């Protein structure tokens, strides 16, 4: 851990220097001569924007979390952004998303369901890491090779929004960001290495990365040194000794748990030897995972909507042959980025048991809309199709918030959903892998 701590101190040095520079620029009249002198001595400064690369089971996510937690624990108001571009992990969202989350306070680890913090709920929570404000886009697959073009676009969208946010947030800008990447970014052999390079490039460009940390992979380190060594710092970090090889089965189970806890929350069991919290309500209170109530159970709502009430889109074709497999000279009929409407009434739509993402409203101005706008809309939430009633053209969906899509009794839900769409994602966990994309939206209001 000495290496991690040293990295943290180095990043912290960058942060304090950048903040000094930013403060002087924001209000030159309040700067003291000492500050000015120090700033001049520092030379060009920049906040740490770190990209962590490494093979599977090398502790990338743990390292990202450790660095984030160190930064937030220093009581300097840092609010670094944790960027998750690994669609097989959800970050504070669900697997299948790419997200950016500002982390104001240290992330606690109390459950494998959200090791990177939990997004906000209406339940009273004491830990800020249990009520995070993630911002993300729906990618919809667990693997990057399914649609690298889409991934590239989403990464760049994420970067644009982060920089927009930083425009008004000096401390946040000085805090920098830390990007956690999928292991496939590091797999430097095999057929996928072309898009791998382009995705790393996308990350470096979008987030204006200035530090690349390569965890325990000498070959990748050399490659990164050669590619980016001139413009930014590439540093090899030894693999942590505590890394445990995780089975894919375990990862799948964690993903399933993540989805479950998105809807239902979780009940944290006290460690053995401690009495359950309900017993000790009045006498001795203790905290579990930083929370006073171990019962963070959430109540999703199940509702029946008719097919007409939603628009569902899929991005690209359901099964897409690689371009190389097409006949020579032929071009795709459906491009990888094209949203296709999905008709739930058609048999074989694959909606049953699928997770759909609700995305933000499209631009209210019709003239501003464009074909692929849905790709640039961020996620608001997720629903699961739990039943399809083809004869009656209805389906049952499980949504995180109470109230139904079509009902008027729940003002909040009704208003937010107005004009939103749902991109669908068939999770490889819930049913057998049939990854595809679709979108839903209510027809009116």
């Amino acid at each position: 851990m000495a290496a991690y701590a040293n990295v943290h101190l180095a990043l912290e040095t960058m942060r304090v220097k950048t903040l000094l520079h930013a403060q002087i620029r924001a209000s030159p009249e309040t700067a003291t001569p000492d500050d000015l002198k120090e700033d001049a001595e520092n030379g060009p400064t920049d906040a740490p924007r770190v990209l962590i690369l490494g093979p599977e089971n090398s502790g990338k996510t743990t390292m990202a979390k450790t660095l984030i937690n160190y930064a937030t624990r220093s009581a300097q108001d840092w609010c670094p952004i944790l960027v998750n571009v690994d669609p097989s992990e959800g970050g504070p969202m669900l697997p299948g998303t790419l997200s950016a989350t500002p982390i104001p306070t240290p992330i606690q680890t109390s459950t494998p369901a959200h090791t990177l913090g939990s997004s906000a709920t209406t339940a009273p929570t004491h830990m800020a890491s249990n009520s995070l404000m993630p911002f993300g886009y729906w990618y919809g697959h667990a693997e990057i090779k399914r649609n690298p073009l889409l991934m590239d676009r989403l990464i760049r969208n994420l970067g644009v929004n982060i920089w927009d946010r930083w425009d008004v947030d000096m401390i946040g800008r000085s805090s920098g960001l830390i990007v956690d990447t999928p292991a496939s970014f590091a797999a430097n052999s095999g057929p996928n290495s072309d898009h791998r390079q382009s995705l790393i490039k996308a990350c470096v460009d979008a987030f204006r990365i200035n530090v690349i940390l390569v965890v325990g992979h000498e070959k990748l380190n050399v490659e990164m040194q050669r590619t980016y060594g001139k413009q930014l710092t590439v540093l090899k970090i030894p693999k942590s000794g505590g890394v445990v090889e995780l089975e894919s089965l375990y990862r799948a189970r964690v993903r399933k748990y993540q989805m479950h806890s998105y809807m239902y929350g979780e009940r944290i069991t006290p460690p053995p030897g401690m009495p359950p919290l309900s017993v000790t309500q009045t006498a001795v209170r203790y905290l579990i995972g930083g929370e006073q109530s171990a019962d963070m159970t959430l109540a999703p709502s199940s509702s029946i909507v008719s097919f007409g009430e939603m628009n569902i889109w899929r991005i690209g074709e359901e099964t897409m042959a690689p371009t190389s497999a097409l006949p020579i000279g032929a071009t795709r009929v459906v491009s990888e980025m094209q949203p296709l409407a999905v008709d739930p009434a058609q048999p074989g739509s694959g909606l049953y048991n699928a997770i759909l993402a609700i995305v933000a409203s499209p631009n209210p101005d019709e003239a501003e809309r464009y074909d692929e706008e849905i790709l640039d809309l961020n996620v608001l939430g997720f629903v699961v199709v739990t039943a399809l009633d083809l004869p009656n053209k209805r389906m049952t969906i499980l949504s995180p918030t109470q109230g139904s899509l079509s009902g008027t009794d729940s003002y909040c839900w009704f208003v937010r959903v107005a004009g939103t769409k749902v991109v669908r994602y068939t999770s490889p966990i819930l049913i057998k892998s049939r990854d595809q994309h679709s979108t839903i939206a209510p027809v009116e209001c």
Partner: protein
Amino acid sequence: MALYPQSQVYAQPQYPTGYPQQPIPPPAPNHFYPPTQPQSQPFFHVDPDTFRRDYMNRLAELTVNSRPIIHNLSIIAQESKRYAQIVAQCIESHIRRVPNWMKLPAFYLLDSISKNVFDPYARQFTPLVVRLFLDTYEGVDQATRSKMEEMLLTWRTGSPDNRELFGVVSQLAIERQIWGSGSQSGASSLKQNGQSGVSQAQVVSELDFVLGQKERALQSNPYDKVSQQHVAILHQLRSLVQAGVSQSELGAILNQLRTLAPAPTPAPARMPPPSVALPPARYPPPQHLPPPSALASTPSVPSYPVPAFSQPKVEPTAANLASSSSAPPVPVPNISNLFNALMKAGVVSANATPTGAGQTAKDQTPPPADSPKDALREYRKAIVSARIRLGSSDIMRQRPPIVRFLYDTAPSQCKQCGIRFSDSSSGKKRMEDHLDMHFRQNRKSTQSSGRGHCRSLFVNVEDWISYGSSDAKGKGRADGLVNAKAMAAAEAAKADADLRAMYVVVPPGDEAQSMSCPICKESLKAEFLEDDEEWVWRNAIIKDDKVFHATCHAEASASKSSLAARLRNEVSSRSRSRSQTPEAQMKDVSHRKSESPTPKLAGNKRKAEDDGHIFHGTKQEEGTPPMKKLALTA
């Protein structure tokens, strides 16, 4: 029993339990806990021989450092003052008889009896104690020795009048034997000693003693920043002294330590172990340094707690030490720095006067104002002084000083969730907010939530972008969301209110005349302002000798003027508006009906703005919306 009002202080580590090295044959359990023999058991031994026999028997139980046994034996001694001589003889023979590893508890007993029942016993022990102590000291191992030294130090002020427990002569005799001749004048007169030879061992041992006191004080009050810092400094001092420093420095250190260590505990509350956590009030707060010039820029910040201020002065030294302490023999030159730091931190006063003197005068100078910027500056210096760069060699450096940055810089900790906050004023503010958040969440969790809780939807792009970390710090909650549009609307509303709050004093003689705004053609309403005792036109502004509605005027000028025109207005009309508009005409809307000092403030602020004549892009930060500014200057 009034002598033992606080007998629980025995639980303090004054009598450290057990011996580190020797395996102790576990005595029968009732030896450890003799509650079966009630303390109130009467001892009416008419016969001295019986008493002697009985006391010896009880003494024989004292094989380990057991608080109840010592306590019991002390009580018996107290109740049998007339047999003081017998008790003294018993204890002496016991100490001489038992094996070395059993001697320390008996000494603790001797210590306890002498201090608690000072009158006959100290006198009785005085002739014995020198020989007894020295003989024992030679026999025991190092760990016991240091404990005995510690005890010896408490004897310096052990008597009820804070003098030497067994008299100056005995005290000196023992100290001279143990630490050499350096302390010949030490116990009696603090002012004279120190210049002559002082042995390193003595200094170290006294350091240990003070350190022990401080650490105990810290244990009882873990959030005492001053003590924390003292402990850190003392640790450094100790390592330095061990590494070897010059004779005069040793003397100086010793002198300073003496002013600290044997300081009196309040006499009425005499407790058996004098080295128990001393009242924190005894430690003077650090003497304030002259404020750095940088502080002058933020005069309005409220006064600031002392310890955090004095810390930065120590930090660089500490950082240097930490980085250079790989080899045990630290070069000597650091000692003066360290000693200065010690002085500055208030552990040691610059001259050898008792630390209490002159303290009050210094306390009266207001503590220098601190600001988040200063806190940040200190942190920055500390971080930069760690000198770690992003390079392979730096990354692999062992023992990074990270603990200091994660814990020491943020000493105040939330007791509910363990999140730490810095000790600066802004950190305190944040901690308050944080505790408020806990309170709110607790209250929320006790209220029944009829339908259960659910996951919130994620935020929109606009919300996420404008959801600054600054206003949401510590809350991070959905209900804290600030919409950019809502903010803009609120700003506009405030600007409008500000405009409406402006007024023009009706010129004398014009009260009856009705004025109408040239823009909207509506008449201006005159009203009597109680505070200033004048008739005024509300929502009015004078422009080119005409009286406008302030809102109308602002609207009109906003619509007609481009940015350039606006800028021109700002520059050209400032002087005119100054001369025509009395200062008191500016009034904050929120205080419209309230006391009159507020308008003055607003006026001053504006004056400062006008005098400044420099328009930075940062004017927005003063909270004046652009609309108002335009109206003010137009």
